[in-house]
């Protein structure tokens, strides 16, 4: 039913611009895989190469073990859900859904039955004879999913399909998409710039920047163990310190910054990087009146306190005026510091990581 997708050293060039640079990834059958990255990072190009609308300049794409080189989009076992959905406005809902079956020569009655069945699957029964214009954003979304599922694709490709929906509906559709994926067990390749979506829905996430795949990992590893500065700062928030690495002992190192020297975990390739930085997530930073001896600590003055309900976000200024952020869970009894208060920001060496910048940009490679 579902098939794996292998990208092997895939590149895409548009003139002299390299949109996708040597991407290699093995997506397993039945996996929910997301490509996460800012706009222009090449993720949509990857999707269009898998669906067949763009030919890779180099490298190989296989689906279910079959080389896709000379296979046209209409012959591939994939179904693409477009960012703007691209439903056919002149056909009623059921004909939209059954279009792929019409193409395959299924007779009208069977097409109609299958369309109704899929409408029930996407929780939209009774909409068969409506026009596309009569549907709300979320309903259109469901019709697009049903239309793609109708051709029983082995791989479903989704190009930011939730970006046009409002926040509440988007969160609802996340769960829905995940559920449909589990129910149908089709391989999903999902494109998004929204880290929340990628982390919440995916089995694995591939973070991209400037045409390159920076890291492929399970969501929690992307967040907890970013491999480089790009991943760390694109996914979640960080306090970032420039500086240089001092003494290294096994996987820990001294890191010398303008606000002090700290002990921190050393990330992959950071030891040899020419511009390493220290990353501390706000939730790993605490504010104390008096740090314990030997602890990583920065003297700060509280600048602003934002009470968010379940957590408290505190902005503090270091000796050079740089803004640092600490976040604390609201346990219902802790005291909240007030602006102007002089405290120390402390963090554990295990929770602070020294990372190299991202892998050099595609166009900068010699």
């Amino acid at each position, binding site marked *: 039913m579902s098939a794996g997708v292998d990208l092997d050293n895939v590149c895409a060039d548009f003139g002299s611009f390299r949109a996708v640079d040597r991407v290699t990834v093995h997506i397993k059958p039945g996996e929910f895989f997301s490509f996460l990255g800012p706009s222009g990072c090449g993720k949509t190009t990857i999707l269009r190469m898998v*669906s*067949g*609308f763009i030919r890779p300049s180099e490298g190989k794409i296989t689906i279910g073990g079959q080389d896709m080189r000379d296979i*046209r*989009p*209409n*012959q591939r076992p*994939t*179904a*693409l859900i*477009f960012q*703007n959905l*691209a*439903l*056919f406005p*002149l*056909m009623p809902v059921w004909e939209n859904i059954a*279009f*792929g079956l*019409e*193409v*395959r020569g299924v007779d009208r009655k069977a097409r109609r039955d299958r369309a109704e069945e899929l409408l029930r699957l996407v929780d939209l029964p009774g909409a068969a004879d409506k026009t596309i214009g009569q549907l709300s954003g979320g309903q259109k979304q469901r019709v697009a999913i049903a*239309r*793609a599922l109708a*051709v029983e694709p082995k791989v479903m490709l989704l190009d930011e399909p939730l970006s046009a929906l409002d926040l509440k509906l988007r969160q609802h559709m996340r769960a829905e998409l995940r559920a449909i994926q589990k129910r149908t067990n089709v391989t999903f390749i999902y494109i998004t710039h929204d880290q929340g979506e990628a982390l919440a829905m995916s089995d694995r996430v591939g973070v991209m920047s400037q045409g390159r795949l920076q890291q492929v990992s399970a969501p929690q590893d992307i967040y907890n163990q970013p491999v480089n500065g790009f991943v760390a700062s694109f996914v979640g928030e960080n306090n970032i310190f420039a500086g240089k690495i001092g003494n290294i002992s096994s996987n820990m190192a001294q890191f010398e910054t303008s606000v002090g020297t700290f002990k921190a975990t050393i990330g992959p390739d950071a030891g040899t990087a020419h511009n390493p930085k220290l990353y501390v997530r706000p939730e790993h930073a605490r504010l104390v009146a008096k740090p314990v001896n030997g602890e990583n600590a920065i003297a700060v003055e509280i600048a602003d306190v934002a009470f968010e309900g379940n957590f408290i976000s505190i902005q503090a200024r270091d000796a050079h005026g740089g803004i640092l952020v600490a976040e604390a869970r609201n346990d219902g009894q802790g005291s909240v510091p007030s602006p102007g208060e002089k405290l120390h920001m402390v963090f554990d060496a295990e929770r602070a990581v020294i990372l190299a910048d991202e892998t050099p940009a595609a166009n900068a490679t010699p």
Partner: protein
Amino acid sequence: MNDLLRRYGPVLSILFAALTAFWLLALVVLPDLYLFENSFRPYLPISEVGGPKDFYSFDNYLTFFHSPIHIQVFVWTIVYSTVVTVLCFVIAYPLAYYLSKVARSNLLPTLFLLILVPLWVSEVLRSFAWFIILALKGPLNILLLGIGVIDQPIRWLTGFRGVIIGLVYTYVLFMLFPLYNAIQSLDTNQIEAAEDLGSPWWRTHWRVILPHAKPGIASGSVMVFMLSAGSILVPTLLASTSSRWFTEIIQQWMFESQDWNTGSAYAFMLLLLCTIFVSVVMRLFRVKLSDIAK
């Protein structure tokens, strides 16, 4: 109107409005009304105009229905105008699709220039050019003989062939541009979505692109049909003795018989019957007038 006033001031605004009104009334509405009124009056010597024989009747219109040859010419005019319309569509659709969805956008100005350049030459010259091209010992036959497609020269200018070729050439752009606009307004993602769902190219055209382009097809067809049926120049230059166009009969009434009354009646008959024909065809293809206006 307020915008016009603010931009050009009262004097210029009134001048614009007056010129437009003059053009519409004096040059379009009044002559038509004059002909319309005349079409109901008999053709009389000057001395009898205004006399007892000068009364309104449908006699001029009935003349048409009493002359089988004129009816036959009218039917042929409708039939061959339809053929011209269909041929224009067949030629313009692939071109419009190519220009709007396939051609690289930096090529478009050049392509449009190439398409428009022939329009800069007067219609009379272009028709004469075709007259030469289509002649029995003309370049087209020489070419076809030369590359071995035919072994006998073709008489292009007998029957309606010459008229059809001339009319298609003259009016094909009136089909191209509405089609181009219609296809261009289609979201390319829809074409890709159809292809992604497994659709071969012809089904994508049939189910997605053509339905979307329907208003453009309709307005292009109406224009080409009406212009063809009402054309006088091309049929005069490129028709043979066996192929008469209805406009030629109107011209004969007016300029050869000097009977402007019957000529006017025939002209309004042409307008009326073509309008009815177009409406029926539009009804058959389920096109609404509001679609065309889009």
